[in-house]
């Protein structure tokens, strides 16, 4: 296991109290595994990705542990985490434009970044890596504004993985791109893993269709908790959690027509995490809910590598 997350709780401090954005999530990430993290807005997927890198001022580590390559990450200690960031665990942010310094050419920015970490630049290696994600070496002589959205996203991917991290968190990296660029970026990410430049990866997205192409396994989250985690083919073909089923059911496939068969969304919205209701958090929107759901369902391994948190799934 590259990464083990055990009962991780991260809360946001607000004036009205603590928002329990991540409320007891446990999972493991195997060597070489790409884990897709899916769910609606506000389910805690971005909070999970962020808390592995850096807790910002509003976030509080409220419990649980994260173990990376045998070391427990000092999540609450911003300074101590610095030893792990970029070296061991790295991030590709959603908006690559805001991740690149607009006043520096890409090459100079990389040199400065590496110098700040006490590492010198191996230009040949850098070119090889740019080539791997399909970028020409002249990207290094350009300013970020001269690159397209897809090129910027791939440039950031190369920069994030320069020190061969164990875990790469890719947070919604494709949501601002169109389909052909999405395909290129996803191909580049898989390439980084296949060449061993990154050991494992967490791919955060709300697009289940795209996740199913890159991920080895998919974890669906709902209202700060794990709903279901399974190998990709199992999750997409035989999901057990009603939320996963409805999420997949609401995806229009190419060729699906309203006239033939209208798809249905999921009524209602996720509960407020300020004072989350007791019991199953999907209860109010779930067509199968009954009295038992007032009790919180534990995450149970119903089949090898297939975990579901639902009373109805067993």
């Amino acid at each position, binding site marked *: 296991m590259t990464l083990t997350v055990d009962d991780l709780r991260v809360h946001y401090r607000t004036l009205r109290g603590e928002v329990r954005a991540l409320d007891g999530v446990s999972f493991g990430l195997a060597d070489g595994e790409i884990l897709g993290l899916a769910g609606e*807005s506000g389910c805690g997927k971005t909070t999970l990705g962020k808390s592995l890198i850096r807790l910002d001022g509003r976030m509080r580590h409220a419990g649980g542990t994260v173990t990376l390559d045998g070391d427990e990450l000092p999540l609450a200690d911003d300074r101590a985490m610095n030893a792990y960031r970029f070296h061991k665990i790295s991030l590709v942010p959603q908006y690559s434009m805001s991740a690149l310094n607009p006043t520096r050419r890409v090459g100079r920015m990389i040199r400065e970044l590496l110098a700040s970490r006490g590492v010198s630049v191996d230009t040949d290696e850098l070119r090889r890596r740019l080539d791997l994600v399909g970028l020409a070496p002249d990207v290094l002589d350009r300013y970020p504004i001269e690159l397209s959205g897809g090129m910027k996203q791939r440039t950031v991917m190369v920069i994030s993985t320069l020190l061969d991290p164990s875990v790469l968190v890719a947070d919604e990296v494709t949501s601002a791109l169109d389909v052909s660029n*999405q395909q290129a970026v996803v191909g580049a990410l898989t390439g980084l893993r296949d060449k061993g430049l990154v050991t494992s990866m967490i791919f955060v997205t709300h697009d289940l269709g795209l996740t*199913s*192409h890159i991920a080895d396994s998919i974890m669906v989250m709902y209202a700060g908790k794990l709903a279901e985690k399974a190998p990709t*083919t199992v999750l997409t073909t035989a999901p057990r959690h009603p939320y996963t089923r409805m999420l*997949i059911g609401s*995806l229009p496939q*190419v060729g*699906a027509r309203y006239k033939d068969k209208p798809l249905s*969304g999921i009524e209602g919205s996720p509960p407020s995490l300020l004072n989350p209701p007791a019991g199953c958090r999907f209860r109010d929107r779930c067509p199968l809910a009954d009295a038992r759901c007032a009790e919180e369902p534990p995450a149970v391994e119903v089949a090898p590598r297939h975990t579901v948190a639902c009373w109805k799934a067993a």
Partner: protein
Amino acid sequence: MLTLDRVTKTFRAGAFGGGSTTAVDRVSFSAAPGELVSLIGESGSGKSTIGRMVLGLTPVSSGSLTLDGERVRPGKDFYRRVQGVFQDPFSCYNPVFKADRVFALVRRAYHPGVGDTEWADRVERAVRDVRLDPGQVLGRYPHQLSGGQLQRLLIARALLLDPRFLVADEITSMLDASTRIDVLNLLAGLKDRGLGVLYITHDLSLGTYLAERTVVLRGGRVVERGDTQKVFGNPLHPYTRTLLAAVPRIGRPWTEAAPVDACAYHAGGAAGSGEDLHETEPDHFVACAHLPDCGRTRP
């Protein structure tokens, strides 16, 4: 009936406006009442520029753009008939005012003579039409509402004017998969009641879900258009095939786009006719397979 005939938009670009960029190049199509036409293209294909021209927010450089036979003339009369909804619902509201102020603004500008109770009835009806509970959304601030609710309120606002045509520019791209489909089903219902819709998107699966007819754009030019099922059931242009092959689908790996044997445009003998598109079958038009690299097909 919205009709575009060889509509072109050229922007000045470069230092001192010396250069020019053609964002939309001789685009022709039409959308009848009760019909949903989807405009599909990647970034930079000119799809949003077309939407802005239809709404009169950007003037047309050449060609004719008419609604029910009249040229687009921005003004109150025009906006009673044509309304638009855009991508980002969060930036369409003033955060310091309650969200339902968008309705009050419509009343002040377009229906100053309507009484309080009648107006409240109309607002409530429009809000129910977009399947929202008036008690839950009226009197709230934008930050208290979700993206799906805000987007539906904007559609309700457009409907208050009882328009005959709606331009929907990427209206679902900021929404979750579960609420996205609600907004799409809502559009389908409105369309069945006679509203013409121009649905602009980069997402093929969303476009095909609703549209009777599809226009595929690349670099400002139409590469293929016509009946949705003909265009995507039998794509003739290599670009349409590439686009279709790049869509991620659950349970099916990405495949290479099937190569095109012969350019349907030239094989159809349209090269000398002066037309930009060749009609290969009824309501299925295709451009030269080498577009945009083959140069102008007209002198």
